[in-house]
């Protein structure tokens, strides 16, 4: 392990290869392709939370104002089962949640499509709905597995008995609200049919699954579907699976016989593209007088929808982070009449870390142990539940390095002691972790007669810097400068690869690129570099390599420190500075990696202070449906963020020796902020976002 803290702008910090395209507006996103004579589609959403559509007055808008198509389940083409009910749009009369697509208007202009969609009469038969999550809901059940494929429960020893026997105990319940991904680019698709061949420019995190889903839905060969996602305006999980927009657009284009474009509105995003489930999390920590854990229990209650099951793995962070001889994790769900929750940045670890890392702070207070020291004291030697060795784990080093950079030493642990004018000042810490995910991928690396190299792989750059990192990995393996390499991604005509999610892009795609580039370099070396005018190319896949990986517990770790200021008159919470130190294997590009980690922490601050989907029980829907009412962090919310990393030389990872950095930045941030608010005010807030009105009555605020 070497420290690369002071090499943030070193040799391996190539600027984004698509940077000029993005700052000049030349980069084309899904809705921005020239499609001759394209019509515009506009979804119509259910205005009831449960029931069925009994009729749609198609003729009231069709043929007027350039409206050329109106689709609903009564006339929409039948789709084949894709295995994902979320994209089985306009197939049944059933309404499973408010905001579900029940119709689609296609017109020659977007203005006409929008107006007709608003005017289209839809008739319903309404039944009673149930859309509010509560811990005592009578239909609580245990899912068979939790996302993506983990055990629902885990039990080691006797957590309840050990808890009862512990000298220091924390038994508290935390809540997190529904949170909406809100990538800046709303989901959008342009679809064009030529005979039985379909081309879509679609905003997604992985074209392969979109291609396979469209092929199934429309009963055509996967080879007859081309999905292009050259530039994607963020996703954060919401574009990881095909969404109604892509199927609706393809369906509409087939029906009207011309290309069709569809962009979801910001408001429509809130019910059509997934969101993070609200959670209710009970934590029970039992420790000896020195803070060494005897018992750790993490019991999670969440919601899912009736369309399909999604079980967020919020408790699994407690299976990895700390040692404790007796432990239990459990997940339970309530099925409600709501859109199905889905992935949002660090599903599981993100909401789970708010509970675990807040509870650890409460334990530190109860035991009278410094919260950094408490975490170090509970560092496990091996994976605490699997018993397997960690491939590498530097949480303790991250905590120590972060404490040093933050200036933690000498902190007075007593709350409410530091005040500057009308502001109380506090500091907080939390640990971060995220698993190493690697899936098979295929890459092609070619050299032409002129000595120019091309790396081809159907990877997706949703803003992570994947395009740049893969170029670097290829160039490095080839032993040539990055200026001699071209990278092609974002097209299903390129070699098959998995999606941009689970922090697995660089691990997975990079391995294939590294393997193919290394082989090409070896061949060139054997030929003494003499390539004919026809060039040479190598295609390599990693399926066997991934399968052959040894059994290790593979996770990235990190530590986050924050300073908060709380206004004693208004309760306003400000976060002037944050420090994050991470250990995530090899860092390929210091510049883009820093941005990824800062971005994660920024979204974590947003989660802590702003984001809250408010369920309206009467209407059965989230009431705040836009960026004026669902707040995300703005520029003025963010102060200094100091990000660094301890580079790990871990021989048990994939070919890139990376662990992934897309999600770990958001894990723990909200807890660190809540812990700092406690330190500032003496008020322990156990629900997100942190509400200023809950602070105003505190004695320290006077």
């Amino acid at each position, binding site marked *: 392990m070497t420290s690369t803290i002071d090499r943030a702008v070193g040799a391996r910090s190539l*600027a*984004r290869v698509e*940077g*000029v*395209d*993005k*700052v*000049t*507006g*030349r*980069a*084309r*996103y899904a*809705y*921005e392709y*020239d499609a001759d004579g394209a019509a515009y589609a506009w979804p119509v959403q259910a205005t009831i939370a449960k029931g069925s559509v009994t009729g749609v007055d198609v003729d009231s808008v069709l043929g007027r104002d*350039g409206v050329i198509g109106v689709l609903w389940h009564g006339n929409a083409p039948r789709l084949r089962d894709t295995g994902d009910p979320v994209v089985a749009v306009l197939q049944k009369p059933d309404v499973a949640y408010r905001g579900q697509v029940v119709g689609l208007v296609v017109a020659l*202009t*977007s*203005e*006409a499509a929008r*107006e007709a969609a608003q005017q289209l009469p839809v008739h319903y038969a309404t039944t009673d709905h149930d859309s509010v999550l509560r811990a005592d809901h009578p239909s609580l059940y245990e899912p068979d597995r939790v996302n993506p494929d983990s055990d629902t429960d885990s039990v080691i020893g006797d957590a309840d008995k050990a808890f009862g026997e512990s000298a220091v105990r924390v038994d508290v319940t935390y809540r997190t609200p529904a949170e909406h991904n*809100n*990538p*800046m*680019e*709303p989901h959008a698709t342009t679809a064009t049919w030529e005979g039985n061949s379909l081309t879509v420019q679609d905003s997604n995190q992985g074209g392969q699954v979109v291609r396979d889903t469209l092929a199934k839905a429309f009963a055509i060969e996967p080879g007859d579907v081309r999905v292009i996602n050259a*530039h*994607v*305006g*963020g996703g*954060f999980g919401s574009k990881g699976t095909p969404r109604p927009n892509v199927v609706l657009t393809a369906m509409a284009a087939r029906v009207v016989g011309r290309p069709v474009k569809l*962009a979801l*509105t*910001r408001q429509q995003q809130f019910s059509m593209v997934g969101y993070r489930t609200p959670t209710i999390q009970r934590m029970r920590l039992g420790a000896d007088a020195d803070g060494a854990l005897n018992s750790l229990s993490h019991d999670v209650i969440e919601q899912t929808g009736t369309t399909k099951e999604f079980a967020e793995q919020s408790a699994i962070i407690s299976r990895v982070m700390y040692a404790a001889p007796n432990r239990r994790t459990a997940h339970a769900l309530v099925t409600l009449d709501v859109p199905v929750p889905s992935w949002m940045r660090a599903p599981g670890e993100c909401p789970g870390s708010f509970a675990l890392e807040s509870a650890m702070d409460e334990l530190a207070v109860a035991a009278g142990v410094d919260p950094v020291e408490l975490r170090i004291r509970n560092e496990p030697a091996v994976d605490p539940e699997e018993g397997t060795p960690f491939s590498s784990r530097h949480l303790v080093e991250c905590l120590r390095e972060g404490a040093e950079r933050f200036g933690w030493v000498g902190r007075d642990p007593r709350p409410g002691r530091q005040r500057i004018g009308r502001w109380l000042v506090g500091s907080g810490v939390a640990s971060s972790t995220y698993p190493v995910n690697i899936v098979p991928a295929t890459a092609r690396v070619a050299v032409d007669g002129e000595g120019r190299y091309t790396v081809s792989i159907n990877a997706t750059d*949703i*803003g992570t*810097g994947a395009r740049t990192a893969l170029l670097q990995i290829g160039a490095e393996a080839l032993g040539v400068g990055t200026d001699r390499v071209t990278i092609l991604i974002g097209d299903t005509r390129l070699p098959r690869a998995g999606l941009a999610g689970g922090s697995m892009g660089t691990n997975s795609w990079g391995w294939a690129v590294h393997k193919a580039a290394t082989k090409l370099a070896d061949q060139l070396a054997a030929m003494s570099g003499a390539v004919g005018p026809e060039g040479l190319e190598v295609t390599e896949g990693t399926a066997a390599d991934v399968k052959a990986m040894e059994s290790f517990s593979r996770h990235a770790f990190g530590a986050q420190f924050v300073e908060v200021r709380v206004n004693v008159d208004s309760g306003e919470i400000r976060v002037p500075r944050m420090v994050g130190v991470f250990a995530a294997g090899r860092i390929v590009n210091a*510049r*883009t990696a*820093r*941005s*990824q980690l*800062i*971005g*994660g*922490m*920024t*979204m974590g601050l*947003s989660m802590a202070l702003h984001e809250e989907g408010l369920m309206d029980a009467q209407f059965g829907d989230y009431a705040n449906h*836009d*960026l*004026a009412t669902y707040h*995300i*962090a*703005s*520029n*003025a919310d*963010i102060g200094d*963020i100091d990000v660094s990393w301890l580079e790990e030389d871990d021989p048990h990872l994939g070919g890139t020796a990376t662990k992934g950095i897309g999600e770990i930045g958001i894990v723990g941030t909200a807890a660190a902020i809540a812990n700092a608010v406690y330190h500032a005010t003496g008020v322990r807030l156990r629900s997100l976002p942190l509400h200023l009105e809950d602070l105003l009555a505190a004695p320290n605020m006077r």
Partner: protein
Amino acid sequence: MTSTGRDSTTSELALRVNGETRALTLDNRTSLLDALREHLGLTGSKKGCDHGQCGACTVLVDGRRVNSCLTLAVAVQDRTVVTIEGLSGDDSLDPMQQAFIDRDAFQCGYCTPGQICSAVAMLDEADAGWPSAVTAPDVTTFHGRRGLDADEVRERMSGNLCRCGAYVNIVPAILDVAGAQA
């Protein structure tokens, strides 16, 4: 749809965009943003919310930053519109564009054109003496872009949301330009 007379639902108009005058017949409901993106092929201006809540659509109208999604195309007929495409030459970047690259002040790039247009106009606002909500109350005429600090930039740029969380890099990018150009 009728195109003439007092009941007309369309208008014939000329838009002056990036130094060119372009004749268009548009549905009266067409926003400036949709006119740019759907009728003029200028897709650099982005639609993030269509309600003036995110800033991704920011363009310059007569040199001032506006949300083009909240502006009807018919309302800017006699005015000068500059979009992200108009900031750079064929082979050269505006200093703000270059600063965004140098500071890695974007990730997905979708808010970026709006951020850059907004930043360019914001510096002119500072030069014009406009105070902000964080300017000291006794300062009624701001002392130009060189007087900007991180807090001023954060405040003045908070109409442009970035979900990737590039604010920490956007602020120094803008300060680089503010210092270099004054």
